[in-house]
């Protein structure tokens, strides 16, 4: 399927959205890969690896989602601007 109103060159945000998905992917996939972290060693402050690794994934996910948010904000703005342009250009 094609967009009936192709975005003007330079205003496409596809690349940005792809990057956002790429950033968020590890936050979804890594916590589900139990074999990565199903061991006791190395321990940290008495915590077996299995437990502290999962807790450590939380700040990692926060950072990834935070960067994704910043990117999405810009992408949303660019989308809106190109929508606006299209609206102005199109026949009323």
């Amino acid at each position, binding site marked *: 399927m094609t*967009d009936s109103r192709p975005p003007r060159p330079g205003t496409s*945000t596809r690349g940005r959205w792809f990057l956002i998905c790429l950033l968020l992917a590890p*936050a979804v996939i890594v916590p589900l890969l*139990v074999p990565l972290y199903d*061991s006791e060693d190395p321990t940290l402050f008495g915590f077996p690896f299995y437990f502290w690794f999962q807790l450590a994934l939380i700040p990692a996910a*926060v950072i990834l*989602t935070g960067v*994704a*948010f910043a990117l999405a904000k810009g992408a949303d703005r660019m989308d*809106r601007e190109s929508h606006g342009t299209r609206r102005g250009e199109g026949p009323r």
Partner: protein
Amino acid sequence: MSDVSTVAFSVFIFFFLLVTILGFAAARWRRAEKLDHLDEWGLGGRSFGTFIAWFLIGGDLYTAYTFIAVPALLYAGSAVGFFAVPYTIVVYPLIFLFMPRLWSVSHRHGYVTPADFVQGRYDSRPLALAVALTGILATMPYIALQLVGMQVVLEVMGLGADSDNWFVKDLPLFIAFIVLAVFTFVSGLRAPALIAFIKDTLVYLMIIVAVLYLPAKVGGWGHIFSTAQAHMTSISPVTHKPTGVFIPTTGNSQLAFSTLALGSALALMVYPHAVTAVLSTKRRDIIKRNMALLPLYSIMLGFIALLGYVALADKVTAANVKKANNPQLAVPYLFQHLFPSWFTGIAFSAIVIGALVPAAIMAIAAANLFTRNIFKEFFKPDASPRLETRVSQWVSMLVKVGALLFAIGLPKTFSINLQLLGGIWILQTFPAIVSGLFTRWFHRWALLAGWLAGMLYGTIAAYNVSTPTTSHWGGSVNTLWGHTYYIGLTAVILNLAVSAVLTLVLRATRVPAGTDETLQPQYTADPVDAPTPAPAAAVLGSEVSRGD
């Protein structure tokens, strides 16, 4: 256990009164000009910013029952006990990608519930009804479990516990329940939003103190983990197998762990109370920003889960739990034994208030589903916004009475089984809601058939799960072709497969697909945009493939 600690009780009463006052005052908080509109009562006027939304969504998703049940799972040695941590990591990026689209299209069309969206997108009353009924059915036992969570704390505090009279025994629960029901009726979603501030402040205080203070009391984290490990590997005299699993190392326990985490994350997104919280925000980027901030709660949840092991390492608590034969009492007993009584009062207040917030939001969400998608749709299509609000208010009351009857009338295991089923059921609305946000490829009748297939398979499979101690409803994972999966996830895969195959058939036979009232740009709209002008034809554009 029978004597109520006066100090703990006084602290508890103080916070309970504070919350009661706030619950009623909330009706005046951020009051809008147009009252008597379901957007006001049921969605807080769609007005919440980042700060309030953070407390509201956090207060909504991390429920009192979680604080009781997750450490109980670890305490009892469940292989999947810690799954709540990956589950609450995985859910936020998914919400980030999917839910802003639901927010935008709902904002444009005034949708209040997920079933409203399904109706607008697919032009199918049966499908919208299926989504609404599933939502109500899945939410009821969830509310009942909040009351069960409250009951557990009240019981450890010694309130009414040693009376044989059922009325005296449950009186504290009745009082808490009446307060909850009345302030929800009066203030709508603003009440839990305001109370969530108190709840989360208390919960964070409780967990920070618990993590800093308790481990040292029982010999440090190293000792706690080694005690837990020794306990789990010891052979149980009842089953002649290891008592529990410390770290899931076998392929099947890992598969159960990760499918449960993923399935629960997908289910959480489409739970009516989660959708209600998402739709109550003011702008779409507030949802995204919150997805980066909400995982803070997951750190807290991780430590709450580990309190199950702390309880195991404390001999007095372990003996108390063994005597009561209920692992759900592990955390309340632990607090009662090791905290000074004034802080026990704070911790118990945190848990009980932690039950009030989600219970209120869930009741509102279920009431909105009934009003919009059953009452208005099938009985009174010309209902005014004022009447809609009235109906929702009364239904929220009814929903809570139902939940109360669940909580006191039925055995606790029954409520837990129902909630477990609720998760499997609500997941069956995922294809209709979330796929609909990106594409209208699926046929409405195919989605309905897929839903039915998933519901039937999920319910039967859950019924057939047996454990050494029970013959039915033994858990939410089963073994399929030699591998162990979360039933909800296999059921939703079946659901999607049926939907896809039937879509091809229905398209080939040209069965009418209905009219889609939504337009592509409306899925990314923000209030800062001008109202979207209607394009000549709404086709699925390049936005379909995009992640937003």
